[in-house]
């Protein structure tokens, strides 16, 4: 049946993509790996849920068979939640279909029945609008659409998996950080910090402000000083706090992408030419080790 076929390993994103399909007046078919995942989606408003049944626990391994299924079903779009698993599956399906794909779209809509996507280039400096034709693939980040609701039935779907990749072991990542996307105030640290103990300077400021602590990608991914969900930017959290204060963050475009919707941006950096000042409402040029403790004291008064 024509319509939009949907997959996300996150039930909330799947329901949001059903919301997109509904708003576009299209039929929505959700795919899930296994009966349990399918059960979690029964109230997401889909026309049908396909519970994939096969020999792999890795959804990515079904790409080839999913591509064939989409063709047979006469699908017009494969819309996938933009998570690491989703991006992998989506691109592999697009590869097997050798079709157009738009990744991590900023927006997606049907305009005169043409699928029109906007996405970011160059870390967010440039926006590109593109029209995709024929059976296509898109990946959609969380929070783009209102989730749909309504009961749907589950149908088992036997698919063949590529079992060449197998899981050896899984270690859950315990989410230690908070959901920065909902934070009112955020203090953000960058690579200027010399050592991990110096995070205390930022924590002290965050405490007087009632702010959460965030960071740049390198602090989380290279130095592992803060959990991965604490990093802000195009590949991390996109936030919209009332107040964002950075210290020792250069403000490269990929990071700034994540704070565009902040109400007020404040930057502290030793280099007056740091790009962060172009993105800031207020800034202090100075050594954070000197400025931040003074700022914390002044705010206590």
């Amino acid at each position, binding site marked *: 049946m024509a319509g939009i076929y949907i997959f996300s390993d996150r039930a909330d994103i799947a329901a949001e993509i059903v919301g997109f399909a509904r708003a576009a007046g299209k039929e929505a078919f959700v795919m899930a790996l296994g009966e349990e995942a399918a059960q979690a989606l029964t109230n997401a408003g889909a026309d049908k849920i396909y519970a994939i049944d096969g020999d792999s626990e890795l959804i990515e391994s079904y790409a080839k068979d999913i591509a064939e299924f989409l063709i047979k079903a006469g699908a017009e779009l494969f819309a996938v939640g933009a998570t690491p698993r989703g991006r992998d599956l989506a691109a592999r399906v697009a590869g097997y279909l050798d079709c157009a794909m738009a990744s991590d779209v900023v927006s997606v809509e049907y305009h005169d029945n043409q699928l029109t996507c906007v996405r970011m*280039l160059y870390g967010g400096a440039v*926006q590109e609008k593109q029209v995709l034709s024929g059976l296509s693939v898109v990946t959609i980040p969380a929070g783009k659409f209102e989730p749909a609701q309504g009961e749907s039935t589950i149908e088992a779907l036997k698919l063949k998996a590529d079992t060449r990749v197998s899981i050896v072991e899984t270690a859950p990542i315990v989410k230690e950080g908070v959901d920065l996307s909902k934070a009112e105030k955020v203090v953000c640290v960058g690579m200027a910090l010399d050592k991990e103990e110096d995070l205390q300077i930022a924590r002290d400021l965050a405490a007087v402000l009632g702010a959460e602590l965030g960071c740049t990608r390198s602090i989380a991914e290279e130095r592992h000083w803060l959990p991965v969900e604490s990093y802000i930017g195009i590949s991390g959290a996109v936030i919209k706090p009332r107040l964002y204060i950075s210290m020792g963050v250069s403000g490269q475009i990929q990071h700034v992408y994540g704070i565009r919707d902040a109400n*007020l941006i404040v930057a502290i950096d030793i280099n007056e030419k740091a790009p962060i000042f172009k993105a800031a409402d207020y800034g202090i040029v100075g050594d954070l080790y000197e400025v931040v403790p003074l700022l914390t004291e002044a705010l206590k008064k």
Partner: protein
Amino acid sequence: MPLVVVCYKWVLDEADIRINADLSIDLSKAKGKISDYDKNAIEAAVQAAAALNGKVAGLTFGTADAKPSLKDALSRGMDEAWYINEPQASQADGAGTARVLAAAIKKMADVSLIICAEGASDTYARQTGPRIGALLDLPVVTSVGKLEISGNTLIATRVLDDCLQKVKVELPAVVAVLPEITSAPIPGLKAVLAAGKKPVTELKAQDLGVDLTPKSRVTEIKGYMMDRKNIIFNEGETAERVNNLVAALRKEGVV
């Protein structure tokens, strides 16, 4: 001898892009560079080749502008480079790019591992690795933060949203690595000098029999500009700067 192929892209430096008042973009001042994360991928390929007792071939698809990338790439420890020099590269979409790269890889002998970075710093579409895997019908592992190779078995640790997932695959395979996999050392003078003597195979998309007609059509490109107050305190004693900032934040009602 097993060959590790590493794909890389020559991109414009995003920091040099100027946005005009009408939001049109000015690329005239933008210099080229090897996409940031591709440098980490190249180093990962060099390490993987050492573990496999093999060699490394770099592979890039670009316009004539990408020529200067070869010396830089070759100085990073690869043994040879393949350069698909194609005017149409600037308009190619993800589908076309993957078709060209896959067709080039098919021409190479003894390929046991294909490494791509997580994504390019211009499009950051994160499609190329998985698409190449699909086109060659090879197993694919993405979001890889750690690679171990023993014999012909590759063990990769994937960094996912909710878990670290260790997976196993027999080579050949396609792997997309995160930049955190390894640092990208700056090549020394000796490596730079040696790079000039390494072999380069230059081809056109036509030589590979690949049609590059894009499957998607770009209808608009515009710059993004932020409208901020840009009030920067950079004079006077530190304490005075801090007091000025606090006064401003109070006035804004955020503290």
